[in-house]
């Protein structure tokens, strides 16, 4: 019975489909009718068939398939062919007719009401900093310009974030007062460019707080909302990418007079690169001195900083990190079984590009008097702050913990780390090797 009705309905399908598949289509119905017994199954079969017919006959086979993704239907076109001209014309006419009817049926009083609502939205933005994550951003396609509304929102939210997250409430208040004073004086009125506005706010925030870790950044591309993922290193893609680059262990070699040379361009996460790091250190293990080249190293993960530093000591040493209060992980896991590095001369090559985790490595070895630094002053980017998005284009870095620095009041943020032997970047390797040779008595 169902089959006969469906055979009739098949005539509605495009001829090409009928020719190729009517046999298979009927067979499919027979199969379903045979295997799916019971009233509900029959009902479902018919529901499916009618949906399919409606989908298929519409515009030949340009038929969109409808599927529900959650509660929202999404459409997939099976064909790229465009609809007939007549259909487009009819569609246009119908749309125009429908749209002209709406204002008439709604009436003049409601129209006024609508426009007033629209005005309110435009004129009084929700500046409640309570829920800044959902604050409306100017737009996705940010041309780099900011309007007054967005500037006010950024200032309000920055003040609120400081109050909520910054370690010192008195300083938060001082910074907020300063920002609002600047805003009141109209200091921000003329700043139309997003990046310039962020720079100016950063300047004012640092002036008022005296804390170089605080910053406000602008991104022309929309920022992800919510905090960044805790760790990207769970991802197989990260591990794969790192392994393809040998975990940025660019050079592992032995120079003249048995001086080991390690050029490391990033501190990759140990979870992805432990075996590579272990192999590199094993290769260098018999060297009489070690040169670690961080001139192109812009940072990475604290786990690798600690992992590599562990080889250089014969007992656990505390590694200061401006990012966090001491944890068990703050001590090196020295001694590393089999490591012959403890007691041997170590040189670290630095440049103005050496930053973040690479600076943490350099700073601690310098303070522990475990390495001689050769090259130029490092970048001065502790990157200790936690990032908080303000809207789609502005975000703020706030230091949420104040780790006690055992060596000085301040870390290297903004100032960088001074080398022990100051030479141009290009001469650093040769200088370090000569020093090592002299120290080893092999000159």
């Amino acid at each position, binding site marked *: 019975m169902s089959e006969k009705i469906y055979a009739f309905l098949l005539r509605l399908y495009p001829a090409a489909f009928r020719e190729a598949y009517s046999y298979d*289509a009927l067979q*499919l119905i027979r199969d379903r009718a045979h*295997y799916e017994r019971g009233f509900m199954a029959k009902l479902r079969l018919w529901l499916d*068939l009618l949906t399919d017919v409606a989908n298929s006959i519409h515009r030949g086979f340009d038929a969109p398939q409808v599927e529900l993704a959650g509660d929202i239907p*999404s459409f997939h076109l*099976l064909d790229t062919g465009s609809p007939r001209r007549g259909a487009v014309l009819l569609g246009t006419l119908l749309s125009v007719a429908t749209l002209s009817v709406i204002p008439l049926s709604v009436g003049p009083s409601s129209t006024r009401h609508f426009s007033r609502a629209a005005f309110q939205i435009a004129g009084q933005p929700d500046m409640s900093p309570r829920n800044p994550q959902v604050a409306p951003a100017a737009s996705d396609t940010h041309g780099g310009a900011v309007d007054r509304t967005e500037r006010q929102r950024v200032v309000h939210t920055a003040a609120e974030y400081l109050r909520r997250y910054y370690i010192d409430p008195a300083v938060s208040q001082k910074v907020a007062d300063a920002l609002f004073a600047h805003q009141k004086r109209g200091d921000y009125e003329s700043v139309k460019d997003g990046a310039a506005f962020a720079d100016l706010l950063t300047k004012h925030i640092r002036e008022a707080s005296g804390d170089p870790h605080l910053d406000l950044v602008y991104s022309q591309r929309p920022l992800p909302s919510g905090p960044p993922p805790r760790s990207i290193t769970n991802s197989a893609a990260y591990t794969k990418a790192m392994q393809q680059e040998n975990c940025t262990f660019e050079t592992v070699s032995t120079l003249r007079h048995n001086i080991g040379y390690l050029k490391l361009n990033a501190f990759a996460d140990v979870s992805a690169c432990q075996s590579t790091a272990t192999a590199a250190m094993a290769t260098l293990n018999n060297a009489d001195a070690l040169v670690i080249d961080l001139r192109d190293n812009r940072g990475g993960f604290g786990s690798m900083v600690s992992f590599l530093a562990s080889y250089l000591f014969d007992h656990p040493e505390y590694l200061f990190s401006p990012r966090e209060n001491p944890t068990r992980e703050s001590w090196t896991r020295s001694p590393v079984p089999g490591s012959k590095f403890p007691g041997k001369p170590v040189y670290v090559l630095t440049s103005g590009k050496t930053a973040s985790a690479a600076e943490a490595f350099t700073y601690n070895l310098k303070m522990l008097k475990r390495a001689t630094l050769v090259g130029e002053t490092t970048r001065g980017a502790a990157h200790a702050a936690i990032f908080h998005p303000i809207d789609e284009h502005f975000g703020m870095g706030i230091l949420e913990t104040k780790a006690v620095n055992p060596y000085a009041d301040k870390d290297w943020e903004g100032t960088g780390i001074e080398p022990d032997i100051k030479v141009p970047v290009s001469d650093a390797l040769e200088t370090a090797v000569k020093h090592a040779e002299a120290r080893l008595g092999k000159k």
Partner: protein
Amino acid sequence: MPKQKLSPLPAAAFQILLSLADEDLHGYGIMRNVAEQTAGRMRLGPGTLYSSLQALVEAALIEEVDTPEPEPGQERRRYYHLTAAGRKLARSEAERLADLLRVARTKKILRGDYV
């Protein structure tokens, strides 16, 4: 039908490729598999099923395979087989969806471990 209609890969076509990953199947078998792997959310009607199969065959993502003579009393059926290109496309589509999922988790729309 031209190839580009499979780009982006329609959900039905992707489900069909997945259903053929383990074994060659005929039309009804594919429909059953797709219904199973989507927990009943996607039931392909004959129109959608066969036009998708046609597009996939033309794009050489699947191929019709010879089947032995049907046993007496059984009807002849067309069986379909996933080609190497089809398997590759299904994998890249799955990777694309995995990336999407990762973004959704980053944005706190979904929670849980990374895939």
